[in-house]
Protein backbone atom coordinates (compact mmCIF):
# COMPACT_ATOMS: atom_id res chain seq x y z
CA UNK A 1 0.00 0.00 0.00
CA UNK A 2 1.00 3.60 -0.15
CA UNK A 3 0.79 4.52 -3.80
CA UNK A 4 -2.69 6.02 -3.52
CA UNK A 5 -3.18 6.38 0.21
CA UNK A 6 -1.27 6.95 3.39
CA UNK A 7 2.47 6.78 3.71
CA UNK A 8 4.42 5.15 0.94
CA UNK A 9 7.69 3.24 0.82
CA UNK A 10 9.20 2.79 -2.58
CA UNK A 11 12.27 2.37 -4.72
CA UNK A 12 12.81 3.35 -8.34
CA UNK A 13 13.68 1.11 -11.24
CA UNK A 14 14.82 1.94 -14.76
CA UNK A 15 13.09 0.03 -17.52
CA UNK A 16 15.64 -1.21 -20.03
CA UNK A 17 14.65 -2.02 -23.60
CA UNK A 18 12.07 -0.85 -26.11
CA UNK A 19 8.38 -1.62 -26.29
CA UNK A 20 7.07 -2.69 -29.69
CA UNK A 21 5.12 -0.22 -31.85
CA UNK A 22 1.53 0.23 -30.69
CA UNK A 23 2.91 -0.05 -27.20
CA UNK A 24 -0.48 0.47 -25.54
CA UNK A 25 -2.02 -2.44 -27.48
CA UNK A 26 0.95 -4.59 -26.56
CA UNK A 27 0.67 -3.64 -22.89
CA UNK A 28 -3.12 -4.25 -22.92
CA UNK A 29 -2.60 -7.73 -24.30
CA UNK A 30 0.21 -8.57 -21.87
CA UNK A 31 -1.53 -7.21 -18.77
CA UNK A 32 -4.55 -9.41 -19.46
CA UNK A 33 -2.40 -12.44 -20.36
CA UNK A 34 -0.52 -12.09 -17.08
CA UNK A 35 -3.44 -10.96 -14.94
CA UNK A 36 -4.02 -12.59 -11.59
CA UNK A 37 -5.87 -15.93 -11.47
CA UNK A 38 -7.72 -16.70 -8.27
CA UNK A 39 -6.77 -19.99 -6.54
CA UNK A 40 -9.31 -19.92 -3.70
CA UNK A 41 -11.36 -22.69 -5.32
CA UNK A 42 -8.38 -24.79 -6.44
CA UNK A 43 -5.58 -26.68 -4.72
CA UNK A 44 -2.83 -24.56 -6.29
CA UNK A 45 -0.21 -23.39 -3.85
CA UNK A 46 0.88 -20.20 -5.58
CA UNK A 47 -0.49 -17.63 -7.99
CA UNK A 48 1.01 -14.36 -9.21
CA UNK A 49 -0.42 -11.74 -11.55
CA UNK A 50 -1.59 -8.19 -12.19
CA UNK A 51 -4.66 -6.62 -10.63
CA UNK A 52 -6.06 -3.09 -10.52
CA UNK A 53 -4.42 -0.58 -8.15
CA UNK A 54 -7.91 0.36 -6.97
CA UNK A 55 -9.27 -3.11 -6.32
CA UNK A 56 -7.30 -6.31 -5.83
CA UNK A 57 -10.29 -8.37 -7.03
CA UNK A 58 -10.30 -6.64 -10.41
CA UNK A 59 -8.12 -8.47 -12.91
CA UNK A 60 -10.29 -7.58 -15.92
CA UNK A 61 -9.24 -3.92 -16.23
CA UNK A 62 -12.36 -2.69 -18.02
CA UNK A 63 -11.61 0.30 -20.32
CA UNK A 64 -7.87 -0.17 -19.73
CA UNK A 65 -8.28 1.21 -16.21
CA UNK A 66 -4.56 0.74 -15.54
CA UNK A 67 -3.73 3.71 -17.78
CA UNK A 68 -3.41 7.12 -16.11
CA UNK A 69 -2.04 9.76 -18.45
CA UNK A 70 1.37 8.59 -19.56
CA UNK A 71 1.60 6.03 -16.77
CA UNK A 72 0.72 2.39 -16.36
CA UNK A 73 -0.45 1.66 -12.84
CA UNK A 74 -0.65 -1.94 -11.71
CA UNK A 75 -0.69 -3.99 -8.56
CA UNK A 76 1.33 -7.17 -8.39
CA UNK A 77 -0.73 -9.68 -6.43
CA UNK A 78 0.73 -12.87 -5.02
CA UNK A 79 -1.47 -15.43 -3.30
CA UNK A 80 0.25 -18.23 -1.50
CA UNK A 81 -0.96 -21.18 0.55
CA UNK A 82 1.24 -21.63 3.59
CA UNK A 83 1.31 -24.05 6.47
CA UNK A 84 2.94 -22.90 9.67
CA UNK A 85 5.91 -25.12 10.59
CA UNK A 86 4.57 -25.50 14.15
CA UNK A 87 1.22 -26.83 12.90
CA UNK A 88 2.92 -29.16 10.44
CA UNK A 89 5.17 -30.54 13.17
CA UNK A 90 2.25 -31.06 15.53
CA UNK A 91 0.04 -32.90 13.04
CA UNK A 92 2.95 -34.99 11.74
CA UNK A 93 3.80 -36.15 15.27
CA UNK A 94 0.16 -37.03 15.93
CA UNK A 95 -0.11 -38.94 12.69
CA UNK A 96 3.17 -40.79 13.25
CA UNK A 97 1.96 -41.91 16.64
CA UNK A 98 -1.37 -43.06 15.19
CA UNK A 99 0.30 -45.09 12.42
CA UNK A 100 2.82 -46.59 14.84
CA UNK A 101 0.06 -47.86 17.12
CA UNK A 102 -1.99 -49.07 14.20
CA UNK A 103 0.90 -51.12 12.84
CA UNK A 104 1.99 -52.15 16.32
CA UNK A 105 5.66 -51.43 15.69
CA UNK A 106 8.11 -49.88 18.20
CA UNK A 107 9.52 -47.45 15.65
CA UNK A 108 8.54 -46.16 12.22
CA UNK A 109 10.96 -46.51 9.34
CA UNK A 110 12.57 -43.45 7.85
CA UNK A 111 10.74 -43.83 4.55
CA UNK A 112 7.43 -44.18 6.39
CA UNK A 113 8.09 -40.94 8.25
CA UNK A 114 8.91 -39.11 5.03
CA UNK A 115 5.72 -40.45 3.48
CA UNK A 116 3.59 -39.33 6.45
CA UNK A 117 5.12 -35.88 6.44
CA UNK A 118 4.46 -35.42 2.73
CA UNK A 119 0.86 -36.61 3.05
CA UNK A 120 0.13 -34.37 6.04
CA UNK A 121 1.71 -31.40 4.31
CA UNK A 122 -0.46 -31.89 1.21
CA UNK A 123 -3.62 -32.24 3.29
CA UNK A 124 -2.89 -29.14 5.35
CA UNK A 125 -1.90 -27.16 2.28
CA UNK A 126 -5.24 -27.94 0.65
CA UNK A 127 -7.08 -26.70 3.72
CA UNK A 128 -5.02 -23.51 3.97
CA UNK A 129 -6.58 -20.30 2.66
CA UNK A 130 -4.26 -18.49 0.22
CA UNK A 131 -2.61 -15.47 1.84
CA UNK A 132 -2.66 -12.46 -0.46
CA UNK A 133 0.08 -9.85 -0.68
CA UNK A 134 -0.06 -6.85 -2.97
CA UNK A 135 2.59 -4.46 -4.23
CA UNK A 136 1.77 -1.46 -6.40
CA UNK A 137 3.80 -0.12 -9.24
CA UNK A 138 3.62 2.94 -11.40
CA UNK A 139 5.43 2.82 -14.74
CA UNK A 140 6.24 6.00 -16.59
CA UNK A 141 6.24 5.23 -20.30
CA UNK A 142 7.66 8.68 -21.06
CA UNK A 143 10.92 8.26 -19.18
CA UNK A 144 11.06 4.45 -18.74
CA UNK A 145 11.13 4.42 -14.96
CA UNK A 146 9.09 2.64 -12.32
CA UNK A 147 8.01 3.43 -8.84
CA UNK A 148 7.71 0.14 -6.97
CA UNK A 149 6.03 0.30 -3.61
CA UNK A 150 8.04 -2.14 -1.56
CA UNK A 151 11.56 -2.06 -0.17
CA UNK A 152 11.69 -5.83 0.32
CA UNK A 153 14.57 -7.32 -1.70
CA UNK A 154 12.90 -10.70 -2.19
CA UNK A 155 9.87 -8.97 -3.67
CA UNK A 156 12.17 -6.90 -5.92
CA UNK A 157 13.60 -10.13 -7.33
CA UNK A 158 10.08 -11.50 -7.93
CA UNK A 159 9.07 -8.27 -9.67
CA UNK A 160 12.16 -8.31 -11.90
CA UNK A 161 11.32 -11.82 -13.10
CA UNK A 162 7.59 -11.28 -13.50
CA UNK A 163 7.96 -7.92 -15.25
CA UNK A 164 10.34 -9.52 -17.74
CA UNK A 165 7.97 -12.40 -18.29
CA UNK A 166 5.01 -10.05 -18.76
CA UNK A 167 6.48 -7.33 -20.94
CA UNK A 168 9.80 -8.72 -22.17
CA UNK A 169 11.64 -5.80 -20.56
CA UNK A 170 14.40 -5.78 -17.98
CA UNK A 171 14.25 -3.53 -14.95
CA UNK A 172 17.20 -2.29 -12.94
CA UNK A 173 16.99 -0.77 -9.48
CA UNK A 174 18.17 2.83 -9.28
CA UNK A 175 20.78 3.06 -6.56
CA UNK A 176 22.71 6.30 -5.88
CA UNK A 177 25.49 5.35 -8.31
CA UNK A 178 23.19 4.58 -11.25
CA UNK A 179 21.05 7.64 -10.49
CA UNK A 180 24.24 9.70 -10.52
CA UNK A 181 25.15 8.31 -13.93
CA UNK A 182 21.86 9.68 -15.26
CA UNK A 183 22.36 13.08 -13.67
CA UNK A 184 25.93 13.72 -14.82
CA UNK A 185 27.61 14.61 -18.10
CA UNK A 186 30.34 12.42 -19.62
CA UNK A 187 33.18 14.32 -18.00
CA UNK A 188 31.86 14.02 -14.44
CA UNK A 189 30.70 10.46 -15.06
CA UNK A 190 34.29 9.47 -15.67
CA UNK A 191 35.31 11.10 -12.39
CA UNK A 192 32.46 9.30 -10.62
CA UNK A 193 33.81 5.96 -11.78
CA UNK A 194 37.12 6.63 -10.06
CA UNK A 195 35.62 8.12 -6.90
CA UNK A 196 36.63 6.59 -3.59
CA UNK A 197 35.12 7.14 -0.10
CA UNK A 198 36.00 10.36 1.74
CA UNK A 199 36.82 10.77 5.42
CA UNK A 200 34.62 13.47 6.92
CA UNK A 201 36.54 14.08 10.16
Amino acid at each position, binding site marked *: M*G*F*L*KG*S*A*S*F*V*RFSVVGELPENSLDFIAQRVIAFSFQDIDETYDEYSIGWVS*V*LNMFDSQFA*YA*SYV*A*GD*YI*TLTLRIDERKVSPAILKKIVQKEEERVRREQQVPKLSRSMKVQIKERVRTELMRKAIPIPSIFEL*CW*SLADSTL*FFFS*TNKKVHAILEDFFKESFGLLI*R*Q*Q*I*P*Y*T*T*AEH*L*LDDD*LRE*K*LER*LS*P*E*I*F*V
Partner: protein
Amino acid sequence: MDLVDLIAEKRFLGQEFLTWLWWKSEERGGSVAIPGEGDITVVFEKHMLLESGEGESSEKLICTGLQTELQEARTGLQMGKKLEQARIVINHNSYEYSLTMAGALMEYRNVRLPKTEATENDKSDKPEEVEGMILERIYLLEELVRLVNVLFGMFLKVRLGANWRDELQMIRQWIAKTAVVV
Protein backbone atom coordinates in the same frame (compact mmCIF):
# COMPACT_ATOMS: atom_id res chain seq x y z
CA MET B 1 29.84 -3.90 -13.25
CA ASP B 2 26.97 -5.98 -11.98
CA LEU B 3 24.43 -4.36 -9.69
CA VAL B 4 25.31 -6.42 -6.63
CA ASP B 5 28.97 -5.36 -6.88
CA LEU B 6 27.98 -1.76 -7.57
CA ILE B 7 25.80 -1.71 -4.45
CA ALA B 8 28.65 -3.03 -2.30
CA GLU B 9 31.40 -0.93 -3.82
CA LYS B 10 29.54 2.38 -4.14
CA ARG B 11 27.57 2.14 -0.92
CA PHE B 12 29.40 5.21 0.36
CA LEU B 13 27.97 7.52 -2.30
CA GLY B 14 24.43 7.68 -0.87
CA GLN B 15 25.75 7.87 2.68
CA GLU B 16 28.07 10.74 1.83
CA PHE B 17 25.14 12.49 0.14
CA LEU B 18 22.99 12.25 3.28
CA THR B 19 25.85 13.41 5.48
CA TRP B 20 26.52 16.32 3.15
CA LEU B 21 22.79 17.16 3.04
CA TRP B 22 22.60 17.29 6.85
CA TRP B 23 25.45 19.77 6.88
CA LYS B 24 23.93 21.71 3.97
CA SER B 25 20.58 21.96 5.73
CA GLU B 26 22.18 23.32 8.89
CA GLU B 27 24.52 25.68 7.09
CA ARG B 28 21.70 28.20 6.61
CA GLY B 29 19.24 27.10 9.29
CA GLY B 30 17.26 24.69 7.13
CA SER B 31 17.28 26.65 3.86
CA VAL B 32 18.98 25.19 0.85
CA ALA B 33 19.30 27.31 -2.26
CA ILE B 34 18.42 25.42 -5.42
CA PRO B 35 19.92 26.94 -8.55
CA GLY B 36 17.18 28.45 -10.69
CA GLU B 37 14.42 27.72 -8.19
CA GLY B 38 15.26 29.61 -5.01
CA ASP B 39 15.23 28.30 -1.48
CA ILE B 40 13.65 25.12 -0.23
CA THR B 41 13.70 23.94 3.36
CA VAL B 42 15.33 20.68 4.29
CA VAL B 43 15.12 19.68 7.93
CA PHE B 44 16.51 16.54 9.55
CA GLU B 45 14.48 15.18 12.42
CA LYS B 46 13.46 12.41 14.76
CA HIS B 47 15.23 9.45 13.34
CA MET B 48 18.75 8.77 12.22
CA LEU B 49 20.89 5.75 11.57
CA LEU B 50 24.64 6.12 11.26
CA GLU B 51 27.06 3.54 10.03
CA SER B 52 30.78 2.97 9.84
CA GLY B 53 32.89 0.15 8.48
CA GLU B 54 31.83 -2.57 6.10
CA GLY B 55 30.48 -6.10 6.30
CA GLU B 56 31.16 -7.84 9.60
CA SER B 57 33.13 -4.95 11.02
CA SER B 58 30.35 -2.44 10.40
CA GLU B 59 28.94 -0.57 13.36
CA LYS B 60 25.53 1.05 13.53
CA LEU B 61 24.10 3.79 15.71
CA ILE B 62 20.39 4.62 15.88
CA CYS B 63 19.16 7.90 17.32
CA THR B 64 15.51 8.81 17.76
CA GLY B 65 13.60 11.42 19.73
CA LEU B 66 11.04 14.13 19.08
CA GLN B 67 12.69 17.20 20.52
CA THR B 68 16.27 16.35 20.02
CA GLU B 69 19.44 18.02 18.98
CA LEU B 70 20.67 14.65 17.78
CA GLN B 71 23.80 15.07 19.87
CA GLU B 72 24.64 11.37 19.87
CA ALA B 73 24.38 11.34 16.11
CA ARG B 74 26.69 14.33 15.89
CA THR B 75 29.17 12.58 18.12
CA GLY B 76 28.81 9.57 15.81
CA LEU B 77 29.85 11.76 12.90
CA GLN B 78 32.91 12.77 14.84
CA MET B 79 33.76 9.13 15.33
CA GLY B 80 33.85 8.78 11.56
CA LYS B 81 30.36 7.39 11.00
CA LYS B 82 28.25 8.43 8.05
CA LEU B 83 24.50 8.80 7.77
CA GLU B 84 22.77 5.71 6.41
CA GLN B 85 19.17 6.65 7.17
CA ALA B 86 17.53 9.91 8.07
CA ARG B 87 14.05 11.31 8.48
CA ILE B 88 13.91 14.42 6.31
CA VAL B 89 11.22 17.07 5.86
CA ILE B 90 11.34 19.02 2.62
CA ASN B 91 9.27 22.14 2.05
CA HIS B 92 8.90 23.47 -1.45
CA ASN B 93 6.28 25.87 -2.83
CA SER B 94 4.22 25.46 0.37
CA TYR B 95 4.11 21.69 -0.16
CA GLU B 96 5.57 19.56 2.63
CA TYR B 97 7.07 16.15 1.99
CA SER B 98 8.52 13.95 4.70
CA LEU B 99 10.45 10.78 4.13
CA THR B 100 13.01 8.43 5.58
CA MET B 101 15.82 8.13 3.07
CA ALA B 102 18.00 5.02 3.21
CA GLY B 103 21.26 6.18 1.68
CA ALA B 104 23.06 3.10 0.39
CA LEU B 105 20.19 1.95 -1.85
CA MET B 106 18.29 5.25 -2.15
CA GLU B 107 15.11 3.78 -0.70
CA TYR B 108 12.27 6.16 0.03
CA ARG B 109 10.57 4.92 3.18
CA ASN B 110 7.41 6.05 4.96
CA VAL B 111 6.94 8.93 2.56
CA ARG B 112 4.23 11.40 3.51
CA LEU B 113 3.06 13.47 0.59
CA PRO B 114 1.34 16.84 0.88
CA LYS B 115 -2.42 16.56 1.13
CA THR B 116 -4.24 18.17 -1.76
CA GLU B 117 -7.91 18.37 -2.61
CA ALA B 118 -7.60 15.82 -5.40
CA THR B 119 -5.68 13.22 -3.40
CA GLU B 120 -8.07 13.41 -0.45
CA ASN B 121 -11.02 12.87 -2.74
CA ASP B 122 -10.71 9.10 -3.03
CA LYS B 123 -14.36 8.23 -2.56
CA SER B 124 -15.40 9.26 -6.02
CA ASP B 125 -16.85 6.70 -8.43
CA LYS B 126 -16.35 8.81 -11.52
CA PRO B 127 -13.47 7.35 -13.56
CA GLU B 128 -12.17 10.78 -14.59
CA GLU B 129 -12.01 11.93 -10.97
CA VAL B 130 -10.28 8.71 -9.92
CA GLU B 131 -7.75 9.19 -12.71
CA GLY B 132 -7.30 12.79 -11.56
CA MET B 133 -6.57 11.58 -8.03
CA ILE B 134 -4.05 9.01 -9.31
CA LEU B 135 -2.32 11.57 -11.53
CA GLU B 136 -2.08 14.05 -8.65
CA ARG B 137 -0.45 11.40 -6.42
CA ILE B 138 1.97 10.54 -9.23
CA TYR B 139 2.78 14.22 -9.72
CA LEU B 140 3.60 14.61 -6.01
CA LEU B 141 5.76 11.46 -6.04
CA GLU B 142 7.62 12.61 -9.16
CA GLU B 143 8.09 16.05 -7.62
CA LEU B 144 9.61 14.57 -4.46
CA VAL B 145 12.00 12.39 -6.47
CA ARG B 146 12.88 15.40 -8.63
CA LEU B 147 13.71 17.50 -5.54
CA VAL B 148 15.84 14.73 -4.04
CA ASN B 149 17.62 14.29 -7.37
CA VAL B 150 18.24 18.04 -7.65
CA LEU B 151 19.84 17.95 -4.18
CA PHE B 152 21.77 14.82 -5.13
CA GLY B 153 22.93 16.52 -8.32
CA MET B 154 24.15 19.52 -6.29
CA PHE B 155 26.11 17.16 -4.05
CA LEU B 156 27.63 15.33 -7.01
CA LYS B 157 28.75 18.55 -8.66
CA VAL B 158 30.56 19.65 -5.51
CA ARG B 159 31.85 16.18 -4.69
CA LEU B 160 33.33 15.67 -8.16
CA GLY B 161 34.26 19.31 -8.71
CA ALA B 162 37.38 21.33 -7.99
CA ASN B 163 35.95 22.91 -4.84
CA TRP B 164 35.38 19.70 -2.93
CA ARG B 165 38.40 20.26 -0.65
CA ASP B 166 37.00 23.65 0.45
CA GLU B 167 33.53 22.20 1.05
CA LEU B 168 35.02 19.24 2.93
CA GLN B 169 36.93 21.64 5.14
CA MET B 170 33.68 23.39 6.09
CA ILE B 171 31.94 20.05 6.76
CA ARG B 172 34.81 18.96 8.99
CA GLN B 173 34.62 22.22 10.92
CA TRP B 174 30.86 21.75 11.34
CA ILE B 175 31.32 18.20 12.61
CA ALA B 176 34.03 19.25 15.05
CA LYS B 177 31.95 22.16 16.33
CA THR B 178 28.56 20.47 16.74
CA ALA B 179 29.63 17.28 18.48
CA VAL B 180 29.29 17.21 22.24
CA VAL B 181 32.52 17.39 24.15
CA VAL B 182 32.23 15.29 27.28
